């Protein structure tokens, strides 16, 4: 009865849209299983949380620099001159029910979004998933990472508190440092000399809530569309070839697993939002351009730029009748420009250097390609070191050493550590590559001493689960005979809880 109703409705749709064929292809789509394929899903689901909580926040946030007297329920700020943006941010945290939870979930989701994208990219690069035919999707991904960083900074700036306001001031000076056009760009964007005519908060707002999310949404659609069209990569294994995909079907298995994962990753975001305070801007106070706080640091994904600015020597150059603020332009404009261009060029550089332009649907284990893995690890170490350099003052305080020492440490560490790390990674991969069974679970060996004094090593019996063999993969059947079948599931193969 219910089946007939479903049949009828599906036919109604197919009569009009012809969805049956493509619909079946879509639902039959096979997804390979590996834990590292979930990293991109974390990014996707934190973006969903960002959209949902972000809509909530726009209902209460007022993007305005107008000076108002705070008169809300947070007593320490009462009577102070603050901007409407700051006042409404405090109000939506304390005077709107669930507002604090939503705001903190939004901020946590942003930090997770950027983190998941970075780790996802690391997985893609280390396993060689960016190679032909997936170069375009890699470029889309890098673009989303860049837009994510930009939008994170914009959103972080919107509360107009003392810490984020200082960040906006720094952004102004960075734009100002661009030779030839810098002061023009800064004046246009801000409506004059810093802090401008009050247009920066509304401009940041519309870019943050509409323009960048719209672009990310479009790119996300393309990213997933290409994933479906090109099919997912898979690791090497029994029955897995360059010409097939082995795994679980979209419907219902993958859908169930990924829906559950949506719930779980959202759960972590909300648990963090409720129990781990993030960006308590009511404690920082409103932004005034002549005030400053101590240990001002941006959100984590901006740390690499802050670190680069810190370790740069004061190389301002005056020549040809102009000032060239290279101490700002090199680390804050040129350096990120070079880094992202390396990201964009990576698939093409790799193909050019290896002279390998074949299709690659099987993933490599990082140890199989020592040189490439060494290069990736060196890049990662570089990013990590400039990131850590953004905490010179905190480290100096923590270890009770002069600030000069921590700074000089990083001036040397930033170029040296990547070389060492890359070389080490290369060596380790070279070793592992020739090691049989590397990465597999070890079996215990029983060592026996014979009466003659000889030693003999006998591998122990495999533990339950170790000898679990996959069945022969089959094509997903469309028709299953449910008539008269005992639907209560029969015996399985694997105990759930060991």
């Amino acid at each position, binding site marked *: 009865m219910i089946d007939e109703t479903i049949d009828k409705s599906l036919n109604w749709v197919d009569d009009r849209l012809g969805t049956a064929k493509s619909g079946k292809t879509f639902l039959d789509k096979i997804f390979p299983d590996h834990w590292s394929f979930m990293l991109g899903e974390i990014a996707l689901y934190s973006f969903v949380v960002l959209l949902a909580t972000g809509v909530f926040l726009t209902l209460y946030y007022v993007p305005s620099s107008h000076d108002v007297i705070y008169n809300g329920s947070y007593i320490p700020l009462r009577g102070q001159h603050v901007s409407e943006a700051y006042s409404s941010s405090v109000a939506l945290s304390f005077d709107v*029910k669930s507002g604090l939870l939503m705001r903190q979930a939004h901020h946590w989701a942003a930090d997770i979004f950027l983190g998941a994208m970075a780790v996802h990219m690391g997985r893609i690069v280390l396993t060689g998933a960016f190679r032909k035919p997936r170069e375009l999707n890699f470029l889309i991904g890098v673009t989303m990472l860049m837009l994510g960083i930009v939008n994170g900074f914009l959103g972080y700036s919107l509360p107009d508190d003392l810490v984020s306001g200082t960040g906006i001031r720094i952004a102004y000076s960075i734009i100002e440092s661009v030779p030839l056009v810098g002061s023009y760009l800064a004046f246009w964007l801000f409506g004059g000399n810093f802090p401008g005519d009050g247009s920066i908060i509304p401009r940041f707002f519309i870019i943050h809530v509409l323009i960048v999310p719209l672009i990310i949404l479009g790119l996300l659609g393309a990213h997933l569309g290409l994933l479906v069209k090109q099919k997912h990569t898979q690791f090497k294994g029994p029955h897995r070839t360059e010409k097939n995909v082995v795994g679980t079907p979209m419907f219902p298995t993958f859908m169930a697993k990924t829906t559950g994962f949506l719930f779980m990753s959202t*759960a972590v975001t909300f*648990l963090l939002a409720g129990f781990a305070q993030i960006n308590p801007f009511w404690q920082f106070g409103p932004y005034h351009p002549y005030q400053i706080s101590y240990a001002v640091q941006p959100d984590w994904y901006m740390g690499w730029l802050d670190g680069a600015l810190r370790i740069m020597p004061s190389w301002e150059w005056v020549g040809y009748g102009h000032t060239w603020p290279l101490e700002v332009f090199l680390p804050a404009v040129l350096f990120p420009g070079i880094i992202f261009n390396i990201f964009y060029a990576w698939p093409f550089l790799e193909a050019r250097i290896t002279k390998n332009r074949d299709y690659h649907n099987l993933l490599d284990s990082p140890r199989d390609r020592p040189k490439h893995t060494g290069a990736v690890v060196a890049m990662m170490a570089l990013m990590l070191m400039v990131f850590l350099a953004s905490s010179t003052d905190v480290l100096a305080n923590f270890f009770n050493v002069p600030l000069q020492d921590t700074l000089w440490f990083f001036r040397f560490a930033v170029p040296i550590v990547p070389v060492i790390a890359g070389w080490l990674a290369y060596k380790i991969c070279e070793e592992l590559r020739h090691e049989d069974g590397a990465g597999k679970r070890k079996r215990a060996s029983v060592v026996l001493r014979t009466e003659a004094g000889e030693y003999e090593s006998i591998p122990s019996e495999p533990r339950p689960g170790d000898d679990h063999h996959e069945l022969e993969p089959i094509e997903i*059947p469309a028709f299953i005979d449910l008539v008269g079948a005992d639907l209560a599931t029969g015996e399985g193969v694997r105990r759930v809880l060991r």
Partner: protein
Amino acid sequence: MSSSTSNGQKPVPVDLPQLRPLAKRPEHTQVLIIICMLLGIAGFIGFMVAYWVGNQSQWQAASLGGGMLFFGFGVTAWGKYLMPRGPFVEERHDFDSSTSARSEFNAVITQRGGLVAKRRGVLLGLLALGSGLVGLALAFPLLRSLGPNPSKDTSAGNTNDSLSNTNWVKGSTVVTVDNRRVKVDDLEVGGVLTVFPAGNAGSSPDQVILIRLDNAQAAQAAPGRADWGCQGIVAFSKLCTHLGCPVGLYQQQTQQLVCPCHQSIFNVNAGCVPEFGPAPRPLPQLPITATSDGYLVANGSFNQPVGPGFWERP
């Protein structure tokens, strides 16, 4: 329910090994999953209750987040352990089209397009020119309407229009952010105060930090500027020459100003030259003096633009 199919495919039996669950004892697994999902549902109801009776983020997060964690775990476990365990396989198809399809498509561009383009090349050129120009034309309002151009006028006043100006002129009264005039004795030796020219309290480019050194230190504070201070008080632009953060940390023992943003250190005893960190230039000094009734006033304006470097800076 139909057991035969319209296109002749035979339905596979339900007990095909690949259609069986992964769990060894599915009934037990199902009980665990039921418990998880019920806990999840309890969490969702708990969130409504928590919202209704109070506004504690912790309770809201615990119920909503905890509920989603259990619920999600249950759904995922259903997928992993109780749905057909597979594995299933799907063929990949080549992405590149057939050679003939390719050459046809390419010919549409090069030959059908080429026919039009080569016959009327001038029109194609005009199309490209016009399309480029309309983009450029739209960029005018999009960019240029945003804000003013930086003015090259270096006379005092109008700090919103120029990077080179401040509102400090000879005779500007020194006031605090709440518009109180400042007397020499308002600062003890070792004290600091952020001040502005009267009428512009709170303005970013005008911010100045007063530091009271003892007289001997102040005399050597800036070579050739012995009379720029007033009874031990010296005045410097508070805008860091690196990125424009307020240089707000004064270390009295070493007479150093420290910028909290990127840790540039300025030696107040030597005219605020940068001793360490990325800042490239000394903080510009403002000459000050006192009126006959003891209030501080500016004895001139800055002799150079304040704040970070920029292209037009001489």
